[in-house]
């Protein structure tokens, strides 16, 4: 019974909470800048508005363009079902699901990039090229982080890797855990197109990465893209929070509240980073990503004794 209740809560949180993170980030940035900022629930209003709009579809495009947002949303939702939130396990969990998680996000990116190329627009092609190039460096950094967790816990299922036994390792292997947290935070910023890698609010197409890729989508399709971006942010924040707060996670419903607070703390942290940093030059992005890969790789090496 408890398990079913936790599953229901998991699905509810994974679907309902993500836009709130965007609201929290926006409010944090406004606070640091001394503004009032938009309402906390503004992202929800935006989504509702988008889903009620009609859409314009370019004549150049084919079914791939319409499939892109759908695949993006489906994979994001599936990914959110794979990672454990507050409970001991996730709704979908099996040995080896870590690979599925990485490749599901890859599938979403694959079709988002194809949808961008389908428009025949140079700007969108540019965005797609940047997105896939940065992702191919972010993937090993993320994956090696997962390898660290697998090595620590001896499990190849995300539920076990992020499970209760991880907390004890903060006492013995904190170096590796700190390294992968750093690496994952960089990956989180890149994958969710945050400053210093990408600016979701910029108005110059030439400098965008993710936003320029989806320029031609409108109405419900754009809503889906924004919603799946929010879910992706939620999934990455939840992963970071699960590792960062594993020592004090507790059990039962306390774990859920600790995790939700943890995710919100990470959203605030992203807001602070966005407030105090400027964007990197695009050519410096790969350097930082390679650094993230090396951090994760050192995390693995430190465990080999």
């Amino acid at each position, binding site marked *: 019974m408890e398990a079913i209740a936790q599953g229901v809560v998991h699905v509810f949180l994974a679907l309902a909470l993500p836009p709130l993170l965007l609201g929290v980030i926006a409010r944090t940035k406004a606070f640091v800048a001394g503004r009032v900022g938009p309402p906390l629930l503004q992202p929800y209003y935006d989504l509702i508005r988008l889903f009620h709009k009609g859409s314009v579809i370019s*004549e150049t495009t084919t*079914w791939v363009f319409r499939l892109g947002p759908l695949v993006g949303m489906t994979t994001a939702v599936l990914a959110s079902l794979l990672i454990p939130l507050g409970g001991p396990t996730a709704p979908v969990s099996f040995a080896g699901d870590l690979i599925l998680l990485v490749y599901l996000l890859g599938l979403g990116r694959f079709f988002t990039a194809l949808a961008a*190329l389908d428009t025949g*627009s*140079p700007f969108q*092609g540019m965005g797609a090229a940047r997105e896939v190039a940065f992702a*191919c460096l972010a993937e090993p950094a993320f994956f090696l982080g997962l390898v660290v967790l697998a090595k620590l816990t001896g499990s190849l299922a995300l539920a076990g890797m992020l499970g209760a036994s991880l907390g004890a390792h903060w006492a013995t292997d904190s170096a590796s855990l700190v390294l992968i947290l750093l690496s994952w935070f960089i990956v989180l910023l890149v994958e969710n197109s945050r400053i210093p890698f990408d600016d979701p609010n910029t108005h110059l197409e030439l400098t965008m990465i993710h936003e320029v890729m989806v320029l031609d989508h409108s109405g419900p399709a754009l809503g889906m893209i924004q919603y799946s971006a929010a879910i992706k942010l939620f999934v990455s924040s939840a992963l970071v929070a699960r590792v960062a707060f594993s020592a004090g996670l507790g059990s039962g419903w306390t774990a859920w509240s600790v995790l939700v607070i943890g995710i919100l703390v990470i959203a605030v942290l992203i807001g602070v980073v966005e407030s105090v940093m400027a964007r990197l030059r695009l050519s410096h992005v790969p350097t930082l990503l390679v650094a993230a890969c090396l951090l994760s790789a050192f995390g693995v090496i430190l465990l080999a004794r």
Partner: protein
Amino acid sequence: MHKDVNMVYRNIRISGSDPRSISATVVGVAVTVVLCLGALAPVARVLGGARPASVRLAWDSFHGEFHVGLDPLSAVFLLPILVVSPLAAVYGGCYLYSFRGRKSLVAAWLPFNLFVAGMIMVVIARTAIVFMTAWEIMSLSTFFLVAFEDENAEPRRAGWIYLVASHLGAAFLFAMFMLIGGRAGGLDFDDFARLPARGPVWSGVIFGLALVGFGAKAGLVPLHAWLPEAHPAAPSHVSALMSGVMIKLGLYGLLRVVGFLGRPAPWWGPTLATLGLLSALFAVALALHQRDAKRVLAYSSIENMGLIALALGLGLWAMAKGAPEPAVMAISAGLLHVWNHAIMKSLMFLAAGCVLHGTGERNIEKLGGLMKRMPWTGGAMMAGAVAIAALPPMNGFTSKWMIYMSLLKWGLSTDGGGLPALLGAGLLALVGGLVAITFVRLAGIVLLGSPRTTDAANAHESSWWMLAPMMILLGLCLGAAVAPGALAGLFSGAVAQITAGDRTTAARVILPPLGTLGATNALVIAMLAAAMGGMAALTRVATTGPTWGCGYAAPSSRIQYTGGSFAATVALKLLPRVLRPRISQIAPRGLFPARALFHSDSPDPLTTRVYEPFFQRMGDRFSRLRVLQQGQVNVYLGYIVVVLLVTLAWAAFRGGWGRS
């Protein structure tokens, strides 16, 4: 080069039917189809668990007997031959028919059938003589197929490189078989299997020779140089068969020979695995920025062969350490990927052939927007790209997942691969990311956007004779995606044979995770379908309009991102310098630029920097021997007499008259 191809495709459609071409096509296709479908039944029986069978015939002309057999290992490698060959033949029947009147189709179908028969013989051969004969038939017949369009320089060059590479590889195999035969006292594989206890050095030498000889056929780096030349030059149905099926026989040979050597030495597995991973990294880095669609696929084949070699290497490593479960897992991952790659790469090559057929172009920079004019080919290519990028919910993902799992499990087990295996998993993730770029680029630039040339704008869809084989392959890919367990069950006999275990244990290790994975793929497919249904209900008003050009009012197809620019971030900045494309350009200068030029080329660094200079120098050295070549029969007779006398003298001095 592309202009020539273009002309050919323009001119061929007018010529009428001619009985010779029709009969050549019908006979050529029918022989392959009947042969392969007929042979499927015994193969299926052996895969299902029937006892291995063999046939021996007395054979006067050669050493030993004529001996062929069918065991689970052979059956696993026969399956792709028997399934892909008839499909390729039917496709090729239509594809080659457009060459009628201009080229002899007999010259295409005779080597094609010999090629298929040669592949089958390689896998069922049970003596070194039959094996090497079949191996040569396979290599020589494909030489004629690669050089089929010999009026163009490119296929001639490709055929030449292929011929040299095949024979250098075969030389190592001859040496290997002679060494084993000398020790075993016969050339029958049964003699090889009964070899007495062997020293580690001797086994190591045999393994090394096999690795070089078979690795050259499998396209493992650095012995891959022939592959990116030969596969694009051959007609597409032949490329499909070569890339999808033939190169796997290199790995078959390696597995067969390793089976003769008893328990693998500790260094074999790590060597093969490292070679595999490096091949994958090297090849994907080059696949990323090729402009020829078929060269992209050829490099992707090297990458996939690298992945299979990685899996098999892990298996040998685990066997050497006496760990049966990881060995079973890794070997099944490899065999599953053999099958998956066979069907998805054939699908991709056939699709690329349809694009070539419909537009006359292989250069992706001159294509674009084909999805609208060639919806079936486009759809098949798109699905194939997802499969080959190893993304869920397609079949490539299942075997890649198995390879990851073998690597991770082997890295985590107490006396397993340790740190190298874990870091290897990270490199595998890098390969995965690069493959995704490669195939987003290939599918996106070729199929999507707007046409970049008039050839692309006037593309025509292929006939159903060419589309149907692709659809069957696509169906097989989907089947392998949702039911990988059924396939692995068929392969468990071979896994047991390689790992010297038994079939039920092997099945127990691999079936549960594959069942989960098949269900996951089905779940992803179901969710996608549900999302599509939901979207159809949600979309209210959809109007059409031009693509938003960010305020630019006169967009054209030339402002689109090209394949070169799409790959540029990675290809020009992140790759090591030797793997980057070579660019020569004159940038426009000043207010009234006079001329500007941009040229980019993606040659294979090993070919241009190592092999070409080496063979050039060898060629120069050997040209000094031309003095021997006098063109007079009496001189040549003199040479023969001298050689004969020397040989006789040598035999006499060794006193070996009566013995051998």
